[in-house]
């Protein structure tokens, strides 16, 4: 009789652990897909440099960016806010790995088109996200009256970049950006038609929806009177919007202008306030 009670107890015990056993069995049969690192960056830009983020298929990002005049001008220009330059544009995801963009810039009346494509994804088998980015800028500020021999090709500037990012942790992501810029129209006395640069940047998330970003570009071919761009920004994400507030020493928003024509001076208080606003459809 005692034996029977013991056995009964035993069988009850086995029934009680059955739920746990069932769950453990499920656990062991789960074979997940390759786990990719997602959302290394919230926005499509760190500050002005592009991030490795690409819009999803059929996603449309509407972009409005401003860079105001230099803060140095003080209260008479309302710290630069009287002198706004604007970028209006859109970015569209054709597939999960390819997007196209077009924008119009106030500065030099530039139309810029771009293409962005993912080459490798950060995941359990590969540590880096690698994205290619190419832009062509069309300068429509040049007047044929001023330059009678001007041809359409002279208006063009090309940028080719490799965006290489690594999501270190939930909070920290880093990026490296080797860049090649070619200008069809240039002044050989002061600059090269081909310029090489390397950008580096990253973000630190302060909260779930707020991140602090920073980027620097070393331009190996810049003339002395230009500087290397250094920018800091704050990403604020609110559902369908991404709002980036920033300070930079390079006022231009085209890839080539930003990297090759930075004219501010952080030490001298000569820098620019601006923002990028993304609305996602």
């Amino acid at each position, binding site marked *: 009789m005692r*034996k*029977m009670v013991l*056995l*009964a107890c*035993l*069988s009850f015990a*086995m*029934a009680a652990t*059955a*739920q*746990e056993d*069932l*769950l453990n*069995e*499920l*656990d062991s*049969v*789960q074979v*997940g897909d390759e*786990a990719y690192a*997602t*959302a290394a960056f919230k926005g499509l830009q760190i500050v002005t440099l592009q991030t490795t983020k690409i*819009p*999803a*298929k059929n*996603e449309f990002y509407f972009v409005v960016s401003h860079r105001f005049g230099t803060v140095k001008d003080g209260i008479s220009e309302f710290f630069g806010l009287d002198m706004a330059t604007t970028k209006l544009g859109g970015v569209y995801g054709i597939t999960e790995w390819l997007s196209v963009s077009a924008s119009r810039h106030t500065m030099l009346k530039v139309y810029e088109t771009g293409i962005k494509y993912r080459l490798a994804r950060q995941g359990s088998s590969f540590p880096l996200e690698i994205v290619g980015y190419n832009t062509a800028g069309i300068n429509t500020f040049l007047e044929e009256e001023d330059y009678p021999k001007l041809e359409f090709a002279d208006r063009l500037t090309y940028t080719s970049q490799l965006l290489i990012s690594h999501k270190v942790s*939930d909070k920290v992501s880093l990026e490296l950006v080797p860049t090649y810029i070619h200008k069809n129209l240039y002044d050989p006395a002061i600059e090269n038609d081909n310029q090489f640069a390397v950008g580096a940047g990253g973000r630190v998330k302060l909260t*779930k*929806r707020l991140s602090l970003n920073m980027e620097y570009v070393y331009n190996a071919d810049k003339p002395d009177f230009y500087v290397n761009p250094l920018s800091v920004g704050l990403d604020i*994400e*609110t*559902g*369908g919007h991404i709002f980036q507030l920033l300070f930079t020493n390079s006022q231009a928003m085209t890839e080539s202008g930003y990297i090759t024509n930075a004219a501010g001076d952080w030490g001298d208080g000569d820098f620019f306030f601006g923002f990028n606003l993304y609305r*996602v459809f």
Partner: protein
Amino acid sequence: MKKNIILLFLLMPVVFYGQKFSTRTGTVKFEATVPSFEEVAAQNKSVSAALDASGGEVAVLALMKGFRFKVALMEEHFNESYAETDKFPKATFKGKIEGLDITKLNATGQVFTITGDLTLHGKTKKITDRVVVTRSGNTITITGSFKVKPADFGIEIPKVVSSKIAETVTIEYNLPLNKQ
């Protein structure tokens, strides 16, 4: 005789343990839409589940990254800021269907009570609700729905979007389990 009874007791858990049904293609949907705002809903079609038919024990496991939204950005936010799926990759349920007798099941379905622990986002909560169980041949299908509050699982919804995400989320499941 006594020995036979002992043997019976010994075999009982073993025999009943063999009556197991399972799937890897169960569906779990959740719906947190507020009327007249953008749809907030997602579906996971690769949910694993197992049923021990003898005692009615059920275990369900869903990988949180498997939930698909219509809007990619919403999915990113779900993974990044709400469910924090890097930190909490799995949602599990382990519980019991009270009074389940698989020999009496039919294709039209019977209603039972299911109770158990739902674990997600690192928090566990007891769930008790009705469940419909149908059987056709070697397939037992468990369907039902229940409501949970994200706040109960430590999932914060920030003020700016709180009017667009329902306070109570409806979770629907459909688990067609095949005999192993």
